[in-house]
């Protein structure tokens, strides 16, 4: 197993970073351009691993995980996770975005993340993923009336949510352990990017913010915090790439490795999110500064395909 990205992967990652910097900077996470989803689709980012037959790039999970880690760094729309999974595992292509439901028990409402203009809703269930036929808006055939779902804010300022009723109209995967692992892997990639973003923001700030006539990064109390952030991000990223390769190889231990990646990525994103706020001092806890974006996204990702201790302790 080669655990260094190849030239094609590196090129894809670099192109993604450049594109994100121009089109989808983290600072703009609160309000994204109206046509952002169309642009993401046009870039093929929701179909990296989807088969060519349904318009996908048919690349491997390793490449996709690397690209998603960069997308996660810019707090890309949550709908990319569910759309990528839906496009990869269902033969019928979905016409547009597939929003992501946070798994809850019936009869609680389906908490649907990133519902804007979505065509359907994907939900993780034990051993498979289910896609509900719940569009964000539709026209009542009889009355000709247009129904648009109500969108509510969520903890994460970059993500809206809608509460939907459960419906029986759905398709789901059967007999393949990989689709739910795919969702968990991509959510882990987003969390790795989130941890990276917090680390970089903290380090950049520590270099420019001065106290006692020197950058605060020269003080060991700050330096150690930044080093710990770098360690957590590196640990999580290594496991992410390893897990992606395991999923590509349909390795017997892929479930363990993907769960490990998700757990470490979630922890890194949360811890780095908190420390980033601390490093920023007084400005760190204000709404106008950006550190809270990373922390809030980290909390949201915790609820997406969480790593079950049972998956980590099995065997």
């Amino acid at each position, binding site marked *: 197993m080669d655990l260094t990205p190849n030239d094609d992967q590196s090129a894809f990652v670099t192109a993604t970073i450049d594109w994100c910097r121009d089109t989808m900077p983290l600072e703009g996470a609160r309000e994204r351009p109206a046509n952002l989803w169309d642009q993401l689709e046009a870039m093929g980012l929701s179909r990296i691993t989807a088969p060519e037959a349904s318009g996908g790039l048919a690349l491997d999970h390793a490449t996709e995980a690397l690209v998603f880690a960069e997308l996660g760094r810019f707090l890309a729309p949550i709908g990319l996770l569910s759309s990528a999974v839906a496009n990869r595992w269902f033969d019928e292509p979905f016409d547009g975005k597939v929003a992501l439901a946070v798994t809850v028990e019936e009869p609680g409402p389906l908490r649907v*993340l990133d519902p804007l203009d979505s065509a359907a809703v994907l939900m993780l269930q034990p051993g498979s993923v289910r896609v509900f036929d719940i569009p964000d808006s539709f026209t009542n055939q009889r009355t000709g009336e247009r129904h648009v779902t109500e969108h509510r804010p969520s*903890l994460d300022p970059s993500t809206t949510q809608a509460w939907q009723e459960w419906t029986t109209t759905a398709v789901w995967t059967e007999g393949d352990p990989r689709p739910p692992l795919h969702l968990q892997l991509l959510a882990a990639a987003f969390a790795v990017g989130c941890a990276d973003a917090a680390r970089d923001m903290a380090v950049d700030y520590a270099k420019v913010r001065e106290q006692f006539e020197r950058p605060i990064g020269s003080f060991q109390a700050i330096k150690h915090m930044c080093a710990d952030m770098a360690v957590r991000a590196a640990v999580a990223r290594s496991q992410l790439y390893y897990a992606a390769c395991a999923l590509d190889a349909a390795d017997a231990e892929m479930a363990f490795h993907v769960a490990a990646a998700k757990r470490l990525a979630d922890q890194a994103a949360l811890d780095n999110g908190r420390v980033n*706020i601390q490093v920023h001092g007084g400005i760190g806890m*204000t709404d106008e500064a950006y550190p809270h974006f990373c922390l809030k996204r980290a*909390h*949201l990702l915790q609820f997406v395909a969480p790593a079950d201790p049972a998956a980590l302790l099995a065997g």
Partner: protein
Amino acid sequence: MLRTEEGSRRHSGLSWVICDMHAPGIDIRPIRKMSGQVEFAQVFYDDVRIPLSNVVGGLGNGWKVAMSTLGFERGTGFIADQVKQSQEIEDLIGRARANGMIRDHRIAHDLAQMRAEVAALRAMTYRNISIVVRTGQPGAEASLIRLFTAELGQRLDRMAVALMGPEMLDFTYGEDNAVGDYLRGFAEHHRGRQRADPARYHRRAAARPSQVAMIAQRASRPGAGRGPGTKDVPWT
């Protein structure tokens, strides 16, 4: 607290004043926290005049005054927070029992640890009060209490959101619930850290001679004050 003696360094030449926040020249710009609440502000002092009679403890004694007030603030001023924390831990244990999450060993362990810490915090505070009774002023331990309270508060807040589940996602700006407390807790922690290190806190506060300081200094000279044609020193 401000610098009232030109050229003075570190702890000397500082004075502690009471300022009427409605005085002309004060510009208060509210700052929104990441929880949505507006609980602090940027304050600009532009040609603000403070009468000499508002100096507390005499000119040049600012450091001493600040140390006494902060000692009390740290030692006993946060007793209300501590009472709240002791109620909070009981509430969290009750909630974890009710929703069954107490069966999770990690949660049970954390709750047990925090209940012990809340008890220790009370013991520390009682001890500090004993010191005040004996010596007339709070000991340096007051700073430890402050830091411990702030960090314990943060962990209690984290536990409260951990017990919420996905409902945490429904938080909206300014909402007064466990998520709001958790997000506001970052400010508390920061403040706690600063206060726990008085040298750091006060050096920062006194780092720049302010306009107010300059005016107070002028006011301290015999015959000084705003007369016809007198121009105040600009904000630096």
